[in-house]
């Protein structure tokens, strides 16, 4: 009897301990993170930077953080770099603990940058542009390459105010095997008519004209064709959802060009056109099974270890113009860095962004092939990069920048689905070009209503 009593009390005690530790466990995390904020504070400041680890790797961030700490005495940079940075920082952000600076581009699956933009949670960066680059004499505005600051890619609300700092730019266009074209004696097509001609010639030899990694890569491609169909003003009207713009003759020409291009797509492309297998489509270029593939300058790095046909040599060209009166164009992809309005260290965060455009930082980035859009960067380029980044030289191609304007979220409607992802259906023949065009105009109507 007595022994039973003892065990009972023991069990009771253990249960009590268990429940208290569980509850304590829940509460504890808050305390320790709060403590962490001030812990390193003694006199100095802590800057919390969260950065997306892309194809350029993670090392460039730790190096640039070290350089920032060296030039800014008493500052400690708390760096968080991850391939899925959104997953790492959102739980803390939801409970009010924001990083001071976030480097995370638009167009990613988790949509963090878009969501914060739509929620009006960004700090305006206009005063950063007027700051002097740390350690230099010029202002940030003067240092950034012309054109980069007047796009929807940096002014998401189309109101003349800059909210995103442009980082790591990369021209997008068509990649091909220059060795193959040389060997066959084929010219790189300058117009779409020449393109179709080449497509027929190649087909006779069992080579397809076109492949694409997956439908998501059509964003840059469609942006470029829109610009080269109707010019800059037309492009801007498309991006701001002007009524009827997607049914205009200029837009129709774009839809029809892609509709025709769909007939030249390599037959196995669709089977691999997803996030898991898209590199197999890129491999088609290296194996001489397809000629052109839309992509960005990160492609050669991504395929660096892949086997390739003999005499393979990277070639890169802008997308041919849809309209005879326009020039070929190439979409300039760039990543974005921004300051969340809820971040605590706004001033230091601005200082950090200004530092991103210093020669010191740009040199560190360039070592990892991440190219900053700053004046004089072209002299720092080496190897294949020289060829890729010269696509705009001598007015050969028009740079296109910035995507769709930000709207309030519209449930169930996005241009990503309706305009880009639908390309798969055009290629497989599940949707007609006319239906596609109609659905894009409908989506555009709904998004226009959600603009402010």
């Amino acid at each position, binding site marked *: 009897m007595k022994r039973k009593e003892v065990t*009972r009390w023991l*069990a*009771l005690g253990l*249960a*009590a301990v*268990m*429940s208290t530790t*569980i*509850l304590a466990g*829940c509460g504890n995390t808050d305390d320790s993170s709060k403590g962490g904020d001030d812990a390193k504070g003694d006199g100095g400041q802590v800057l919390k930077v969260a950065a997306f680890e892309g194809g350029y790797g993670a090392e460039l961030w730790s190096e640039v953080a070290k350089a920032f700490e060296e030039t800014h005495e008493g500052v400690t940079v708390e760096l968080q770099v991850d391939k899925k940075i959104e997953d790492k920082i959102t739980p803390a*952000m*939801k409970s009010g603990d924001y990083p001071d600076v976030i480097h995370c581009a638009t167009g990613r*699956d*988790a*949509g*963090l940058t*878009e*969501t*914060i933009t*739509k*929620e*009006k*949670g960004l700090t305006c960066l206009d005063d950063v542009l007027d700051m002097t680059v740390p350690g230099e004499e010029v202002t940030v505005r003067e240092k950034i390459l012309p054109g980069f600051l007047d796009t929807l890619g940096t002014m998401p609300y189309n109101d003349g105010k800059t909210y995103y700092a442009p980082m790591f730019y990369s021209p997008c266009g068509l990649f091909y095997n220059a060795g193959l074209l040389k060997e066959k004696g084929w010219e790189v097509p300058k117009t779409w008519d020449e393109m179709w001609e080449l497509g027929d010639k190649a087909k006779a030899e069992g080579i397809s004209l076109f492949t694409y990694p*997956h*439908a998501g890569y059509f964003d840059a491609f469609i942006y470029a064709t829109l610009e080269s169909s109707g010019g800059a003003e037309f492009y801007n009207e498309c991006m701001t959802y002007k009524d009827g713009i997607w049914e205009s003759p200029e837009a129709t020409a774009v839809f029809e060009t892609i509709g025709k291009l769909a007939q030249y797509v390599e*037959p*196995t*492309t*669709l*089977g*691999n*056109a*997803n*996030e*898991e*297998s898209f590199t*197999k489509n890129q491999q088609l270029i290296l194996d001489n099974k397809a000629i052109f593939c839309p992509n960005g300058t990160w492609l050669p790095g991504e395929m660096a270890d892949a086997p390739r046909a003999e005499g393979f040599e990277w070639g890169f060209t802008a997308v041919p113009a849809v309209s005879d009166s326009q020039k070929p164009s190439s979409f300039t992809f760039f990543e974005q860095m921004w300051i969340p309005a809820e971040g605590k260290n706004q001033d230091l965060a601005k200082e950090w962004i200004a530092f991103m455009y210093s020669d010191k930082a740009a040199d560190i980035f360039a070592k990892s092939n991440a190219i900053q859009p700053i004046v004089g960067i072209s002299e720092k380029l080496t190897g294949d990069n020289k060829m890729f980044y010269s696509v705009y030289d001598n007015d050969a191609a028009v740079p296109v920048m910035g995507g769709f304007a930000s709207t309030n*979220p*519209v*449930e*169930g*409607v*996005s241009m*990503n*689905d309706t305009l880009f*992802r*639908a*390309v*798969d*259906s055009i290629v*497989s023949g*599940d*949707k007609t070009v006319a239906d596609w065009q109609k659905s894009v105009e409908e989506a555009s109507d709904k998004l226009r209503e959600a603009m402010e």
Partner: protein
Amino acid sequence: MKHRKGRNGFIAVCVLPAVILFIIFMIVPTINVFKMSLYKWGGFSNNKTFVGLNNFKILFEDPKFYRSFQNSVLLIVMVTIITMVFSLVFAAILSREKIKGQNFFRIIFYIPNILSVVVISAIFSAIYDPSQGLLNSILSIFRGAKADPILWLGNQKLVIYSLVIAMVWQAIGYYMVMYMASMSSVPESLYESANLEGAGRIHQFFNITLPLIWTNIRTTLTFFIISTINLSFLFVKAMTGGKPDGASEVFLSYMYGQAYTNSSYGYGMAIGVIVFLFSFGLAGLVNLATKREPLEF
């Protein structure tokens, strides 16, 4: 009397931790999902607008939601039926028949279940590869080498069945082990007397084995519904990403796309509410439809 009171107190203290955890991590979030579904909210700011049932109104007019819903239902039905048939047959063979290497097969069948979904996706992406994949290579023996490749993950009509195959492959072992466990508890004497009466193996399976493991089958039906809903999201995320053009989207992947990629958190939660009610309802319905008087043995 006093003894009972003490015992009740003891039980209460023992279950308290579990109850607290259950409330914090299950009840509260579920209530939150229901609450959020009534707001228009991006997920971060304090800028929440109460919109009543508007999210549901949009949902019922959203063709993309219907398509993802259809895909989910198709997956639940196909995966459940095919997996159940295969795992019952395998379980019956492995537990009733004397074959060489029984344990070996048991392990082989179970292995897919311990692989992560990402690994399985990579395996099946290789099998489905249009030009070098296992499936097309085998089929080319019959179709001729020049035939157009079948795009298992690129054809909008095929892609969902390609997912079914991968999910069935993954699930068979788990359910097989569950069925084997209950089959082994069926008394041998029943089979012996059936043998004496001259009943064949198939007859025995339908008249002895199946009725006697019925309670177990009912339980697994609920498992099937829940795990297919959950796993289909992982498979879609890892293998197709909803491509081509949303043809392989299931409702959880559509919910993710809306809540995060499309910044409509409230709308995503409305989808969550529908998924919640649907899976509860379906599990209840299946439970009701399969209710039988339990057989004693």
